[in-house]
């Protein structure tokens, strides 16, 4: 396959016009010793038919979670995606356009992102949201760096229950700025130990990170934590699940300073973990310190409403080493997907997604409780919770897989205190009562009678 359209005679003519007799002459600045010897060893060109067949074979070598009964979560969820999302995303006006540097011919992208910012600001009840980050973990890392700049201190407190993958990303970003990360332990219901937190806070604390719901799915007492954090003069950074915000008090209402989260739940395919969508929202005074693009409405010279990128003096292409972040390309198209998703479902449909997820999770919990399965943290969760299965998480997960069920995430390796029997189970609106019964039977050791 080739996507080059110049013909040999085009090339000859162009070289002539350029004033050289061969292509080789154009490479004159490159010493011949540096040149590649021979053809790149990546195989011969394939026809489009061969490409389709090769990729089809690779796709078929996978068994997708979306085709199974999946209770896998941990940041990536199996949710229903309305057809409008793929339709809008497949419009090449959106997917083949560039970052909207020439605003006059990018009003479609700019308005769509402005509407995305609005939806995120409303979901989180914050003053404003940016035009997207890579994913929740990098958004959280940037929020941490932002807090450190605002507070001019280098200590950050995170919950010990935070996803270990997210923690690893925070560590990578913290190392360059010598930021010290302390962990506050969790208590018997899986939420953070407020007493321990109070003791850890000091004037050196730049920020406290709180996940709501936390990695174990549990709902934190955000007002209590917020009070403690602000009393100590630190910033409260909340890592929020966007679907949960349809039912749970939004962070702006308990005085969060910066809110980040993972937007994959908002109409984005699981796609083996990428691309994802980090969102970041903040209080107005912190906007000048925030990373990434911000789209603002304004007027053109005729007084007509339009949209443009704004506060660009924060950004790398203007400020270089003094920029608030190095982020440039973000996740524009994914943010568009999230907007289309939220607009399609609308206020009522989106609330229904959250309500069904929560209701089904509670139903599963009740079934497991009745079947005598151990549930270490109790009922105060949103859509995800921890179960402990005698005989080990791995054996349970393998047993379930044989029945076409992805039972959950084993937690023992990441959280040794929970033991090798602990499994994190996520329930989305896609699960049916029958799915829940099957998982319950498997967990109760009944082998899953159909």
């Amino acid at each position, binding site marked *: 396959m080739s996507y080059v359209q*110049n013909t040999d005679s*085009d090339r000859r003519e*162009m*070289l002539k016009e350029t004033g050289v007799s061969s*292509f080789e002459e154009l490479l004159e600045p490159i*010493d011949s010793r540096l040149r590649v010897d021979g053809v*790149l060893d990546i195989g011969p060109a*394939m026809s489009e038919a061969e490409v389709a067949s090769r990729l089809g074979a*690779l*796709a078929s*070598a996978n068994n*997708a*979670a*979306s085709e199974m009964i999946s209770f896998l979560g941990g940041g990536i969820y199996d949710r229903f995606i309305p057809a409008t999302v*793929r339709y809008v995303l497949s419009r*090449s*006006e959106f997917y*083949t*356009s560039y*970052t909207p540097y020439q605003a*006059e*011919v*990018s009003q*479609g*992208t700019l308005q*769509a992102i*402005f509407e995305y910012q609005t939806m995120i600001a*409303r979901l989180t009840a914050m*003053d404003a949201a940016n035009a997207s980050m*890579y994913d929740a973990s990098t958004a959280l890392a940037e929020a941490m760096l932002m807090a450190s700049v605002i507070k001019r201190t280098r200590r950050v407190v995170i919950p010990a229950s935070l996803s270990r*993958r997210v923690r*690893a990303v925070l560590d990578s*970003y913290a*190392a*360059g*700025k010598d930021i010290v990360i302390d962990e506050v332990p969790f208590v018997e219901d899986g939420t953070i130990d407020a007493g321990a937190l109070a003791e850890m806070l000091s004037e050196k604390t730049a920020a406290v990170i709180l996940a709501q719901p936390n990695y174990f799915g549990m709902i934190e007492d955000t007002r209590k934590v917020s009070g403690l954090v602000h009393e100590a003069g630190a910033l409260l950074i909340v890592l929020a699940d966007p679907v949960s915000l349809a039912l749970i008090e939004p962070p702006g209402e308990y005085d969060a300073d910066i809110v980040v989260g993972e937007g994959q739940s908002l109409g984005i395919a699981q*796609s*083996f973990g990428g*691309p994802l969508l980090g969102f970041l929202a903040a209080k107005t005074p912190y906007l000048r310190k925030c990373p990434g693009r911000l789209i*603002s*409405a304004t*007027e053109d*010279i*005729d007084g007509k*409403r339009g949209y443009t990128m*704004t506060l660009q003096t924060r950004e790398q292409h*203007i*400020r270089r080493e003094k920029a608030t972040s*190095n*982020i*440039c390309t973000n*996740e524009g198209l*994914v943010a568009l997907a999230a907007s289309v998703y939220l607009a399609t*479902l*609308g206020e009522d*449909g989106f609330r229904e997604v959250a*309500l069904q997820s929560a209701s089904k999770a509670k*139903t599963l919990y009740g079934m497991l409780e009745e079947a005598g399965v151990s549930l270490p943290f109790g009922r*105060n969760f949103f859509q995800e919770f921890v179960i402990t299965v005698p005989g080990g998480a791995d054996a349970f997960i393998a047993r379930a897989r044989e029945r076409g069920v992805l039972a959950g*995430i084993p937690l023992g390796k990441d959280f040794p205190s929970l033991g090798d029997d602990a499994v994190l189970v996520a329930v989305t609106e896609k699960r049916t009562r029958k799915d829940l019964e099957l998982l319950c039977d498997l967990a109760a050791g009944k082998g899953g009678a159909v």
Partner: protein
Amino acid sequence: MSRTIFEKGANGRSGNFLPANDCPVDDLGFAHRREGEIGLPRIGEQDLIRHYVELASKNYHIDKGMYPLGSCTMKYNPVINEEVASLGGFAGLHPLQSEDDVQGALELMYELESDLCEICGMSAFSLQPVAGAHGELAGMMIARDWFRRRGEERKTVLVPDSAHGTNPASVVICGFTPKTIPSNEAGLIDPEVLKQEAGDDTAVLMLTLPNTLGLFEKDIEKIIRIVHDALLEQAEKGIVDYPDYLFDVGALVYMDGANMNALMGIVKPGSIGIDIMHLNLHKTFSTPHGGGGPGAGPVGVLEHLAGLLPVPRVVKKDGRFSLKETSGESIGRVHPWFGNFNVFVKAYAYIKALGGEGLLEVSENAIINANYLMKKVARDYDIKYPGRCMHEFVASGRNLKKFGVKTVDVAKRLLDYGLHAPTVYFPLIVEEALMIEPVETEKKEALDHFADVMAKIAKEAEENPEILHEAPVTTPVRRLDEVAAARCPELSWSGGECLPMEE
């Protein structure tokens, strides 16, 4: 102007997307319930589609016309790639499924990594970074940890003045201090200047090859040797103890691979001594830019740095693929999973479609197109660094200043002619810069048309500059008041209210 989607809905309108809840409703357990509405739209599906189609009509895009943004490599995005990337066997995978269930995905990643290694002459690639700047960040973390592991606190990263803004910004996040290296009168790094600037404290030289002027550093061998020697001298003095195989690797050379579209099948960066580099799959390997992402910025290294790459790594043993989670030296993670997998599928399909000869054809045509267009544009615009260019060149609107016309006016006038503007006012070392990258998928006629329009605009500048000051007039909106937006940005829809910014 299109009304916002929030103004188009009405109460009571909404679709029915989910089956009825077959479990008892339970939202009462929450200690902290949300009160009141979120404020999401309520809009019928037809109006929703019309809304987005209307927005779509206001976008310029590759499928509409030439997109000569320098350094952005806006090439055609093959539609087959979109099709294969949306296959359920890829799109429906959860990253924590068992390795048995994801063999195809791991195989694709493994092969893509090894193809990128072959194309770039590197020993190993990690696909984890999700954007070019993210790849830079991972690369700088690798450099930082490499020196830290050797007990050295080298703080300086040398960055040429023609570098992308992301370069110094990435350097700073990793705790390094960028030091600007001035370009010489040819637009290149001067080895003599570099020799003076490189010293005991130098950790990395971060260069772009070809550089942002579209020029290949003709002294690249000398440059790399100088940087590598900065460390070698210390090793020889016995200040630092290095294993033998590292003796010829000193301070490190990082290559921003944003311009790799010029080098495929021509120069392998790793083979000439580049220690670390990143690629932009959304530039060189044709994956769509999506109006600002998602991208992918794989980071590649030579053998001595391979252990520092982000984890997990895909490994192959006895025909089976698996994920290796830990490596003692690794910088850790820059992403919770494996990077932007969906983008990998498209880049992989592109590489397989073209093969080795096809990728060389890409770079050849990118270079021929740029040189041809430079020659044509040079008739009407200044070229500060004439001669041979690689895949892009930088023109200047300086010669139009005498008519009271600036580069921004030229850019806006191009929009009136139905074309997209080049990258403007970058690189910073060229006054009134117009950075033009025609890419290989545009054919000669398209370049001729672009050059003709550029000539026409130069003539307008002379004869009737007012047209340029007024431009654009044919676009959905005209020039926007960015100053007002920055003073009091309206970042979300609330009936037109803005947020006053403190100075």
